[in-house]
């Protein structure tokens, strides 16, 4: 009690005052609280959300939220110690109704190392529950508040140093549904963006420590959705059918980086700006502050991949802020047509641009030769490269695929088939099979100018890719084994050699 006493008040008088206040408030309030039906909050892992509330009267909602310090992957092959609410980043979503009384039990597990607490932005009162819930490992705090105002609110740990607690994943959201309820939709998803600061660079492997200086400088290594690079891609992609309505509860935990939240390939029908009461219609990109939220509703109309991004795009392209919604259903060309691509007519005006100074590409196999080889790789072509003895470990393989998805798939397509005439294929590619080392060279140094792959002419520009030696070797081997039916063709040491040769 004396810890809470204010300056100028003696311990005794503050205790007496607190007791008097407690008696004054508890006496009339207790009978009302007893009449409320008790509901225990169902907690589910994101991107799932607890079910829509169909109650039409207030309840007392009991929330049992654990604090868990866990080590897990922040990117394939990269581990990090997360501090979490309920074991997940973001923390488990809490869903209550306007006017409900929330009885929150925060449990700091005995195996944890650090003190934690919770500040819910849905609380009306100083600290949002922070002072009431500050607990050391092995303790539980109970805190009750009334959800006065409907909206979508961020909650987070507010223990010093607060930036570090949030940077390690201690945030989540509480939805206070309006008393009149929310319209049913086909899918509800829960996504939060957060920035992470590791001592190693983006996707450097192994266990990474928190980098205090990067956090203070607000220079994140990762900006990701739902706590990991790839948490919402590949097999983890969100799902919907064309024509189904989707509601997404989107928030930004931060601690520092706001989001220009955008879903490539759709237009938001409604955006409840900043998670509040009113909605805007037909929105492309909505700004979400750190410690803030938005509710977006949209209906995918045609099949394909919709891509969640922070439209501050190097975060999406270089720091992991990418998610996918996989949409199935019937093609509807009247809404979304297939494209037609053709060369310009021979008499079309040339650009006055300076001609490329890049030396002519090394001789490529004649069209006929390539066609003769067909799609099946020749053993001879692959065998020319000295293959490392062992097949790649599963983790390396997973990592390689992640590197591919993040760096190659946007142009060369997820299946490696490329785009005819624009981006050369990597899968079943005669060029790749015959010259895997040159492929590594291109990844390392970039390339522009003419190129013939599987008999088709290409004349584009590929920028050098900022990847580690390990990652270049891994991704080239991945393309060889998974897309060209070949063997691993090189290792990181070889790439290091090539890099050294370049800098001479």
């Amino acid at each position, binding site marked *: 009690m004396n810890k809470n*006493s204010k*300056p100028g008040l003696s311990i005794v008088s503050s205790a007496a005052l607190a007791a008097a206040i407690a008696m004054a408030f508890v006496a009339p309030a207790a009978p009302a609280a007893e009449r409320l039906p008790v509901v225990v909050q169902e907690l589910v892992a994101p991107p799932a959300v607890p079910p829509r509330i169909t109650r039409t009267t207030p309840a007392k909602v009991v929330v049992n939220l654990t604090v868990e310090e866990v080590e897990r992957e922040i990117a394939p092959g990269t581990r990090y110690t997360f501090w979490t609410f309920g074991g997940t980043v973001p923390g488990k979503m809490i869903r209550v109704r306007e006017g409900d009384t929330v009885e929150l039990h925060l449990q700091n597990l005995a195996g944890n*190392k650090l003190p934690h*607490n919770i500040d819910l932005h849905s609380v009306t009162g100083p600290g949002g529950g922070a002072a009431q819930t500050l607990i*050391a490992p092995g303790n539980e705090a109970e805190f009750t508040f009334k959800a006065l105002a409907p909206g979508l609110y961020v909650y987070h740990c507010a223990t*010093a*140093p607060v930036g570090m607690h949030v940077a390690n994943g201690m945030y989540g959201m509480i939805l206070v549904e309006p008393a009149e309820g929310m319209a049913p939709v086909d899918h509800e998803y829960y996504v939060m963006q957060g920035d992470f600061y590791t001592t190693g660079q983006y996707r450097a492997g192994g266990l990474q420590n928190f*980098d205090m200086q990067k956090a203070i400088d607000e220079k994140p290594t990762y900006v990701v959705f739902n706590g990991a690079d790839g948490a919402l891609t590949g097999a983890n992609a969100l799902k919907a059918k064309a024509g189904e309505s989707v509601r997404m509860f989107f928030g930004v935990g931060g601690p520092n980086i706001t989001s220009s939240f955008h879903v490539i390939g759709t237009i938001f029908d409604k955006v409840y700006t900043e998670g509040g009461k009113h909605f805007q219609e037909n929105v492309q990109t909505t700004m979400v502050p750190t410690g803030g939220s938005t509710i977006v509703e949209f209906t995918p109309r045609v099949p394909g991949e919709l891509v969640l991004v922070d439209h501050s795009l190097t975060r999406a392209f270089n720091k992991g802020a990418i998610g996918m919604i996989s949409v199935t259903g019937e093609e509807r060309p009247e809404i979304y047509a297939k494209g037609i691509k053709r060369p310009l007519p021979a008499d079309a005006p040339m650009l006055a641009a300076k001609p490329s100074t890049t030396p002519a590409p090394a001789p490529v196999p004649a069209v006929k030769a390539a066609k003769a080889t067909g799609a099946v790789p020749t053993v001879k072509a692959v065998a020319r490269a000295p293959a490392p003895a062992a097949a790649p470990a599963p983790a390396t393989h997973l990592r390689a695929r992640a590197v591919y998805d993040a760096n190659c798939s946007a142009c060369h397509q997820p299946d490696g088939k490329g785009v005819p005439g624009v981006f050369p294929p990597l899968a079943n590619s005669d060029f790749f099979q015959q010259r895997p080392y040159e492929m590594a060279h291109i990844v390392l140094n970039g390339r522009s100018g003419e190129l013939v792959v599987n008999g088709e002419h290409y004349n584009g520009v590929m920028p050098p890719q900022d990847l580690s030696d390990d990652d270049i070797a891994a991704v080239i081997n991945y393309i060889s084994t998974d897309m060209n039916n070949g063997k691993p063709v090189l290792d990181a040491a070889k790439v290091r050699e090539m890099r050294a040769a370049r800098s001479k």
Partner: protein
Amino acid sequence: MGRAAVRLAAAFAAALVASGGAWAEPAYRLLPGGTLRSVLPDDAAGADVTVAPFQLRERPVSNAEFRAFVARSPDWARGQAPSLFAGPSYLAALADGADDAPVTHVSWHAAAAYCASEGARLPRWHEWEFAAAADATRADARDDPAWLATILAWYSAPGSKVPGAIGQGAPNVYGIHDLHGLQWEWVEDFNGLFVDADSRAGQGKRQLAFCGAGAVSLADRRNYAILMRVALLAALDSNHDGARLGFRCAR
């Protein structure tokens, strides 16, 4: 309360009697004291605090030492200490703890009683902070980001392991071991750190534990490693204990 106080006094007396007995004298080191740029400054203006010369125990109290204390003062055994002074998990790890590992799951009252049995007391926060500012070669290493990063790395390691043996690393410049990287430690005035006697400060300093409010009253906001110590102490009551919470004594 009255009965408990009597029992505490009895324990204290028993400890004093026992101290006449023969056991290895724990090593204390003299620290010179001086002015300290504390994360919890003396006043709202962020003035340096003055730390008087004091002696600090070279090593945290070990399981072996605490077992010997409990043998001398059975009132402080697990299940014997009054609940006002010790919670249900008090000394939960003592029976199975390695002799050379620090004692954990110890309440503030028990730690204070132990120190009294050595003719000492718990260190005050500013004394602990003064000692903990030093690394192996410098009295104040806190401006060295590499050193801070080393300390922070301990917090990055998941907390599933109990503290290992005492004294595995190099001592700091004062010859003190394990102020960082092993465990949390009680301080004598943990309970008074956040009450500001100066009403000009406005908000009580307890608010520093929370969110942006901490930025108002903290003097050294970059020292995350020390801030976490403060936050932990703020989260404790005097009968609490923890799997990584131990102590050392001062005099």
